[in-house]
Structures are given as C-alpha cells and as structure tokens.
C-alpha cells in the first residue's frame, strides 16, 4: 500500500464534500433558517432549484425577482370545514400544519417560492398549491385524508404555533392554528393524537397532562 493512499481517500471525501457544500450554498440561497422543529428530519425539503427556477415566465414576476422567496402566513379552514390548515413561510422555507382539532394532524415542510407551494411530511404526506394576492390555495394529503383549501394571509396573533416538550420521557408535539382568535390544535404524544389544550395567546403557554407546554410562533 502506498503511503499516500489513505490521504488520497480522505482528500477525495473532502473534495466530494466541498463540491456538495458549494452546490448546497447555491441551492438554498439565501440560506435562512427554517424553525428548528421536530419534524425536521422526517420532512426533508423538496429540491429548491427546479421548483423555483422553472416557471418564472408564467408568473407575473419581473425577471429580476424570478426566484421570489416569500415570508407570509396563510391560515384557515380547508374546503368543507373539517380541518384547518396553516402554512408559514419564511424566506421561501415553509412549514405547514393540518389539524382537525381532534385526531387528524400532520406537519409538512418544504418550499414556498415563485408562487408555488411544495411541502412534504411523514408517510408521504404532501401539500401542493399556489400562492399570491394574499391567498394560498391547493391540496393537502395527510394520512388517509385529502382536502383542498383556499385560505388567506393572516397576521399575528393569528398564525401557526408549535410546542415541543418532553413529558415523562415521551416527546410531545403540540400544534395550534389560530385564526381571528379561534384556535384549532392537537397534541401528538405517547398516546397518539389528542385535542390540544387552550393556548394562552400572549404567554404562548398551555398545560397538557399536568406539564407545561411553551409554544413558539412559526410565522
């Protein structure tokens, strides 16, 4: 074995890593933080480049703003009113939460860029749609349920809130969609999904099973 062979192996790995790093930097510009949330690993983002680069001609955006990364929150009831949806986008990185306040809920992550929403979640959950003119519309599939939605932009204190906590060694994730003072929320804990306790809005706290939950706004 040549003495330099292991070093070359390391350098090859470093080279591949460097190429990917540069590519990543280009893909995710400006690399702004999505909220550090529990679903980060499950819901890896969809590729940004194809979604954002392709249909710039079709939309009304001027060429300079072809890749338009939006910061906005849309929330409301899905068509038919069985559940609520909130989509919070920050610089093009989007987190969505669908919840019926009882048993159905799902977190999704992805992109909101160039007028298009593309998010995915656990177990093949998906949300696709479009946004613009203060509205977001599209369809969302969570578990066995699929709904369409057409919801409007909301501003604080309306929006999407999320709390993660460790209650008696079990991870508990709570989500709340707040629209005009009305809340829909659920807590996913060791015993499955349950209705969320009331989220106190100024303090963003709630009590679940005797333990405190502290929520953060995702919008």
């Amino acid at each position, binding site marked *: *074995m040549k*003495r*330099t*062979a*292991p*070093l070359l*192996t*390391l350098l*090859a*790995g470093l080279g*591949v*890593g460097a190429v*990917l*790093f540069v*590519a*990543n930097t280009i*893909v*995710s510009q400006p*690399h*702004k*933080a*999505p909220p*550090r949330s*529990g679903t*980060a*690993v*499950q819901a*890896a*983002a*969809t*590729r*940004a*480049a194809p979604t954002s680069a392709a249909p710039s001609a079709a939309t009304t955006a001027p060429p300079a703003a072809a890749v338009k990364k939006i910061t906005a929150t849309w929330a409301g009831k899905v068509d038919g009113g069985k559940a609520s949806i909130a989509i919070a986008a920050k610089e093009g*990185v989007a987190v969505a939460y669908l919840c019926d306040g009882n048993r159905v809920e799902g977190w999704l*992550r992805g*992109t909101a860029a160039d007028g298009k929403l593309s998010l*995915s979640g*656990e*177990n*093949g959950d998906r949300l696709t749609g479009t946004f613009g003119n203060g509205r977001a519309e599209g369809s969302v599939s969570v578990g066995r349920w699929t709904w369409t939605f057409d919801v409007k932009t909301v501003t604080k204190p309306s929006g999407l809130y999320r709390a*993660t906590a460790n209650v008696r060694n079990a*991870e508990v994730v709570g989500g709340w969609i707040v629209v005009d003072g009305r809340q829909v929320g659920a807590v996913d804990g060791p015993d499955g999904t349950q209705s969320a306790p009331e989220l106190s809005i100024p303090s963003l706290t709630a009590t679940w099973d005797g333990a405190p939950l502290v929520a953060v706004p995702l919008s």
Partner: protein
Amino acid sequence: MSTEFTGPPSQPPSTRPLQPPVVATARIPVVPPTPPAPPSAPAAKRDAPSSGRSVALLLPLLVGGGVSVSLGVYGRLHTPSGIAVDLAGFSSPLAVKVWLACGAVLLAFVQLLSALAMWRRLGGFSPSWAGTLHRWSGRLAFLLTVPVAMHCLYAFGLATYSPRVLIHSLLGCFFYGAFTAKMLLLPKKGLPGWTLPVLGGAVFTALTGLWLSSSVWFFATNGVQF
C-alpha cells in the same frame, strides 16, 4: 500489491496478547472499543520504543478529534437550511440518503469480513486479495457516506430534539473523526498492534449506529421506499 498492508504480519509477537479487542470488535456493536489495558500494559514492558509508539498515535488522534468537534460545531452554528442538493431518481431526498447509507453499511460488513481475513481470524481463510478488497470497499463506503452527511449537516445540522436524533448527530461527528484518525494512522509504522483493529472497530460501530438511527428508523416509520 495486495498483500503488503501494514497490519498484523509486520508485528506478529505484539498482536498476541492483544487479540481480545480484535475479537470484541468482530462481535459488532459493542460500544466503541475502549480497549482493555493493552495500550499501557504491553507498552510498559517494552520500555524505550513504547513511548514513541504512543506519541505516533497522538497527532492523528488529535486531528480526528478536531474533525469530530469541527463537524459538531459547524452543525450547531450553521442554521439548517431544510434544503440541500440530492441525487435524482428517488422519491425523496430522504430515500436517497437511506439507500446510500444501506450501501455503506453493506460495504462495512465487507470491511469487517475482509479485515478478519487480513488478520487471519477466519479460520485460516486469508486470501491475498483480502487487503485490496478491504481498501476498495472502504473507499467506496466512505465516499457513499459523504453526500448523506453533507445533506444532514447542511439541511438539518446537529440536532438534539430526540434521543435518536441526538445519538445520530453525535455518532456522525464521531464517525468522521475516527475515520480520519484511521486514515492518518494507516501508513505509520510501528504502531501498537491494537491501533487499527480498535479504530476500524470504532468506525464500523459508528456507521452501524448511524444506520440504525436513520435508515432502519426510516423504514420502520415510512415503510420501504425507493
């Protein structure tokens, strides 16, 4: 070309009392080998050169530690993008990673077997090509892990929100440190006999742990997807 690895043949006597750690690593996921006494015990008997041997270990191990710590610090400081490039042809970026990791783990088992053959631990089955197989399967396995790790590091960072994720994050940092240390130590002559088995075992154990905490978890939660 294929027989001149720096392993056991160069130092048959010194490997004798040191076999236990080799056997231990072969039994797979025992915790990264904190080898029982050997570093100091035999070293004490071989007075003069022994200190030199341990010193030779120092720099590569420090560099490896530096790699681990740097990865961890970067993963913590860099705000996770949630997005990173991935390979086409799979249903999701996670599926890409999961299958690359499976490939790496498969090759890691080739690594284990070929290492056992090199160290004549397979009941006399020690073909001349074992060394070549070991080197190339290792290189390939390492290169397969790089895109996975870059995606983890860039899109997710070092996260701590659940035990699985914490363990995965820490093992990921440890893996590249241990691998770096092993690569830097490979060409060195006159190392203590346990060095390569212990480091190889650490790398193997870390990779297995990484795979269990990611791919296996992914299949368990999402089913087998491509």
